[in-house]
């Protein structure tokens, strides 16, 4: 992944010092669900320093990801699987800056069947959307950010973004939500080389064998589940 969009040293410094408060807050919130965490904690995101998101955005991403894919007895949460790290890294790729999208104007309103017709690439859709949601939260919840809300309030807010009931400045909440959900799912299920799906935990959850790339012996087997654990692009076995 490209490194050339990394923040300058001074910005890095700035958000290292800022990062303590919101991350700790998000961490506390996550504790509520620690009890039924099924997998090991080695996959937790505490040691990853974001290079794209600032501290406030990072706190949002971690909190929102774990609402979308929570920890439970089915499988790891998004952040346990490394989805926030994936998203931070993915936002630095040419894809997220609109490399394969048609980005020329005019940008006119069109029916939903024509998809997103705005002028923002994915990384800015996320940034503008996060800012919008946090601004909404500050107004509605006496100065609190999304990451600082109760779980129930976070969930409600994401639901109203999903349906488009929530109105945000500068962006359609529905479009923002849809990109956020896509990115979170990708971070959950991608090959570990992209930063998410740590220890192939999400693949194990659904029984995806990864890049085995040869199933000729198993095409006609009907009476037993596919027996082999996943293998990733680096050849590691899960």
């Amino acid at each position, binding site marked *: 992944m490209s490194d050339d969009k990394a923040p300058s040293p001074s910005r890095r410094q700035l958000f290292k010092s800022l990062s303590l408060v919101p991350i700790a807050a998000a961490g506390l919130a996550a504790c509520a669900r620690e009890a039924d965490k099924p997998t090991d904690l080695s996959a937790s995101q505490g040691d990853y320093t974001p290079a794209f998101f600032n501290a406030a955005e990072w706190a949002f991403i971690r909190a929102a990801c774990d609402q979308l894919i929570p920890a439970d007895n089915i499988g790891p949460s998004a952040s346990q699987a490394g989805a926030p790290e994936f998203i931070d890294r993915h936002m630095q790729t040419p894809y997220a800056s609109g490399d394969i999208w048609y980005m020329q104007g005019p940008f006119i309103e069109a029916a939903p069947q024509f998809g997103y017709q705005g002028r923002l690439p994915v990384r800015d859709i996320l940034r503008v959307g996060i800012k919008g949601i946090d601004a909404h939260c500050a107004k509605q919840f006496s100065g609190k950010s999304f990451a600082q809300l109760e779980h129930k309030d976070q969930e409600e807010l994401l639901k109203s973004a999903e349906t488009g009931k929530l109105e945000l400045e500068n962006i359609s909440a529905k479009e923002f939500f849809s990109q956020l959900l896509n990115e979170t799912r990708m971070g959950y299920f991608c090959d570990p080389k992209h930063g998410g799906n740590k220890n192939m935990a999400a693949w194990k959850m*659904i029984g995806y064998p990864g890049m085995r790339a040869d*199933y000729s012996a198993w095409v006609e087997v009907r009476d037993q589940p596919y027996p082999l654990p996943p293998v990733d692009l680096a050849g590691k076995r899960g």
Partner: protein
Amino acid sequence: MAIVKPKVDAVIVGMGWTGAIMAKELTDAGLRVVALERGPDRDTQPDFAYPRVADELEGSIHRKFLQSLAKETVTVRHSIKDTAVPYRQMGSFKPGTGVGGAGTHWSGCHFRALREDLNLRSNMKQRYGAKFIPEGMTIADFPVTYDDLEPHFDHFEYVCGTSGKAGVLNGVKIPGGNPFEASRSREFPLPPNRNYLGAELFYKAAREMGYSAYPIPASNASAAYVNPYGCQMGPCNFCGFCSDYGCLNYSKASPNDSILPVLRLRKEFELRTHAQVLKVNLDSTLNRATGVTYLDADGKETEQPADLVLLCAFSLFNVHLMLLSGIGKPYDPVADTGTVGRNYSYQNLNRVTLFFDESVQANGFIGIGGGGATFDDLNGNQLDNAKAGFVGGGVIWARQPGAGPIRGITTAPGVPNWGSAWKQGVKDAFRHSFYYEVQGACMSYRDHYLDLDPTYRDAFGRPLLRMTFDWNDNEIRASQFLVGKALDMCKVLNPKALSGDAKKTGEHYNITRYQSTHTCGGAVMGSDPKTSALNRYLQSWDVPNVFAPGANAFPQNNGYNPTGMVGALTYWAATAIREQYIKSPGALIHT
């Protein structure tokens, strides 16, 4: 001042299936050929090598084998009174780029047309009377017959190592194949592939419903194979990375593994990649092409003079180039004049997913692009169109090109999009569901067409192609009828849950959801130069040293995948060039 290259006999725009076939045939005939491909060079090694090619994020999200819409795209609108907006993100259809084109990332379904598909208009008239064809439906007969194309269907299947079972061989019905197909002169080069669970159960359900299921002809080799050009293929190992991906195993036929290994050794053939063709140049008569202008890899404007210009780009971009270059008269749907852009059609694709409990090992990650099973009992003349209430038939099939979690996991009805219930839903569905699809024909209409957009431009400053298209009542009725039949069939298998997506009455075309890359028409072949851009040899009526093979030539689309037909038409056109045009350049049909 543009760089001017030495003149060649033929210049080919685009190095997908049609470009590779033309290059092979024309160099066979001794012509010196230069091919210009807008994308990069690609070969099995290193571009499709395992494991790197099997990266879902790169293949299905970053779209590494597809054209970048930032450079070229289309605009779309539902009707002539709307303002079109750009196809900004990849969705409904997926044009490829690079050597191999869409022939690299296709699945491998390799059908011939039915005999009656090629004379649809006269067949409908004969069966139900002229009034059965609705006002504004502009379907037409192909100006070629099945018998014209049979040797070319056959040859292309042998080039591709197509795996299947003949249903009618030299007029005799053969058990196990499609009893409704037009007669073949030879058995398939390879036997059918083995069945995954969903395909096996498809045979069972079809039998109970009284349908005659047969193996989908698949250009995914069922055994080791050497094609007539000496190119080698290995047996498909069901890796699950077919659609969207280049084949890591030399199993899926592609220009890259089935034709280019020979072409690359020929001194009469030169391939220039990163060569973006901007337009075809015409002389002052506007009836003769002098070559093409392109941007070379360095961005320098370059002219390639040639006696013969072969437009072998993706169907949409063949039409685009003709419009930009002034080859033929642009279609005007209001005045009903002109030909280029006329009769744009698509494919009517619908899916039903069957969910089972965890004792059923559907294993969607096991995949083969073109394999599976289908039947023709609701296609061609087997369907009573008057009773069904629409023109055109379709097929229902079981196909499993390979699922992975980044490509998306369809969950059972009622499962939310996120949260613990979603996690449970994807876990339940991933290994224990499969889908059947309805692939319906799509008719052409007076107000469905392609032209140049008045507002939006591509990265090279040219107007984008504008598509005016929506679902017509006829296609919606077809969708509802065929999906209804598919659901009846699914019930035989007693799934735990079932989801289906027949088009709703009044539903509009949605460009955000992938449906099919079978964009057809726009520069159609025909016998009347007033209503077709190309004659029966895919030669421009207006500029006879330009040929435009591709699905752009279909006057409407049938229920099958187009690649088998596209390959056959290209060999047919190449034969006409070799046997007639080279001896006596000029119009092959006189008007």
